[in-house]
């Protein structure tokens, strides 16, 4: 068990190119489950590999339990990693795979046996211990990879998209298993994913990366409720938030003709234009007679059974127009709604749930 501290950690693959990881500072508490999330190429895997010692740190430091890891070999860091491809040793049985690290660190045979048996019990691998990876299903291999990390009782778990090779159903059940396991073992965990559902459901805190730079670190709810900029707002949440570029007049943002009041304290900070973000569940369908509302032409209705998503645009629907000049608005509705493609609905955002960002920088406006 250990704390992990990224101190302005930087990784450059080439001298002149943009850094893959750019001055990332992250303080991870002992026993915390931190999720690193971002689009592909954002530097999340590189950050993880730097922590494990598989990539050099070109600038800044990475501390584990307060000790700078510079020059410490991967095998001496006491960090266990679960790879996306699982990276099991194909010539060894499941039990041998799990015992390999303990063997290498000269743990007593009896101790190895009991730890492997314990891990196999936790992960329900008892019947598979003599099988080789080639004879196992994807889910079983994933569990062996987890077992290989668990038996070591390391300072830190590093997990690099461990669920992305599983089918959707297995992914959901394994997700909660891993989170539960981490809570039980209390081992500091850094978990990399590009899947925002994993990010929202698994971690104590989530760190969002973009182009190697840290955007926001916060508990999932805060990330969702108070994104620091338009990137985080758009990345977290599915379907995505609707972002509307709106001019500001008299302390009110003009969203497609609908005046959205900006908090008085924010009005000063806002420039001529702001970006207004409204999540799908923050829209209300109002009667046509309502004086305050936006008329949308429905383009698509997705019914998921328990809820529906209505996608619409302002103005009449023109199938020939490839790039309409108004944003597509996503609205979540309860159960099924009697709305069909081509119809017009009148909607209004819930004022208290509207996010306001600076029109040029995209930063959240805070009073």
């Amino acid at each position, binding site marked *: 068990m250990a704390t992990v501290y990224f101190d302005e950690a930087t990784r450059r693959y080439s001298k002149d190119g943009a850094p893959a990881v750019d001055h990332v500072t992250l303080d991870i508490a002992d026993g915390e489950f931190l999720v690193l999330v971002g689009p592909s190429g954002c530097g999340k895997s590189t950050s993880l590999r730097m922590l494990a010692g*598989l990539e050099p740190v070109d600038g800044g430091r990475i501390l584990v339990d307060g000790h700078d890891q510079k020059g410490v070999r991967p095998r001496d860091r006491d960090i*266990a990693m679960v790879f996306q*491809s699982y990276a099991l*040793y194909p010539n060894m049985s499941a039990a041998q795979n799990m015992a390999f690290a303990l063997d*290498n660190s000269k743990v007593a045979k009896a101790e190895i046996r009991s730890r492997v048996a314990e891990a196999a019990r936790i992960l329900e691998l008892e019947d598979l211990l003599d099988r080789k990876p080639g004879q196992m299903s994807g889910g079983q291999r994933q569990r062996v990879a987890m077992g290989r990390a668990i038996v070591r009782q390391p300072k830190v778990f590093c997990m690099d998209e461990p669920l992305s090779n599983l089918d959707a159903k297995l992914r959901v059940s394994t997700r909660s298993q891993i989170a539960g396991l981490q809570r039980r073992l209390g081992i500091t965990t850094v978990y990399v994913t590009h899947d925002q559902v994993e990010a929202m459901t698994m971690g104590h805190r989530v760190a969002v990366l973009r182009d190697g730079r840290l955007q926001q670190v916060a508990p999932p709810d805060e990330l969702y409720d108070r994104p620091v900029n338009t990137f985080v707002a758009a990345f977290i949440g599915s379907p995505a938030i609707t972002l509307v570029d709106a001019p500001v007049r008299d302390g009110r943002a003009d969203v497609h003709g609908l005046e959205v009041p900006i908090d008085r304290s924010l009005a000063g900070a806002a420039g001529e234009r702001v970006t207004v973000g409204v999540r799908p569940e923050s829209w209300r369908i109002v009667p046509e007679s309502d004086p305050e509302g936006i008329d949308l032409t429905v383009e698509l209705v997705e019914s998921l059974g328990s809820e529906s998503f209505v996608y619409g645009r302002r103005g009449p629907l023109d199938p020939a127009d490839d790039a309409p000049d108004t944003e597509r608005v996503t609205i979540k509705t309860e159960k099924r709604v009697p709305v069909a493609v081509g119809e017009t609905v009148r909607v209004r955002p819930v004022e208290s749930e509207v996010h306001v960002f600076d029109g040029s920088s995209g930063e959240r406006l805070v009073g």
Partner: protein
Amino acid sequence: MIGRKEVAHGAEAASHRSPAMTVAGYVGMVLVVLLVAVPLFWIVITSLKERQDIYVRPAQWLPAPGTTDNYADVTTRIPFFDYFRNSLVITISLATIKIVLGVISAYALALLRFPGRGLVFLVVIAALMVPNQITVISNYALVAQLGWRNTFQGIIVPLAGVAFGTFLMRNQFLGLPSEIIEAARLDGAGPLKLLWRVALPMSWPTVVAFALITVVNEWNEYLWPFLMSDDSRTAPLPVGLTLLQNNDGVTNWGPVMAATVLAMLPVLVLFLVLQRQMIKGLTAGAVKS
């Protein structure tokens, strides 16, 4: 005619080629098989012929009557088993040295990071391009000066350099999934353990192919042992066969062919035993599993 048509038709259905192309393909294959098989067949039947039958025209394709005298002759008239023993000593030592050196150097070049790694590999590649015959003269001068003529070390040491194996095994190691190597490093495997428990077990087919190629090469090594040895103290089988040829003044092909067959047998057996793994090795990496 009907049979050929059916074959052609079947092949066409499988590969969507015209019947003429298919027939041409089979004819080509038959030609290649004949090219390889006829000389081998000729060696075997000649070794079973009596002396006067060997020069008969037109050629006699089946020995009548057959005889095994040539085999008895070859094993009694020259110290055949001395040559055989020398071949075993030279082949086993050289193959062992080359395989160990090849694997270890390839491991260093593929999986360890050190300055000048690329340069070292370039030098190894360059060594592959120098023909043996060019270094023979200087090597001979050196080895003769050391007094190593007619000794096994005189034959083995100058041949023990390895470039092909380094090249083959390095590419094999580079082709291993890097995540598995990284996993082993994180699991605390030292360099030897990483090689022995992780990298090699995933590379057996290539190692087998490399070993087989090396054994065959060393077994058939001719020029250098011929220069190094004068008699059955150290000369391997191929050199022994030459001595057999020269002994008679006029070459008596029967015993020579019998000796050739005997010299081929061990390699042939080894080949048959390992061929499946070898082919797996030569095509390994062609299809991602």
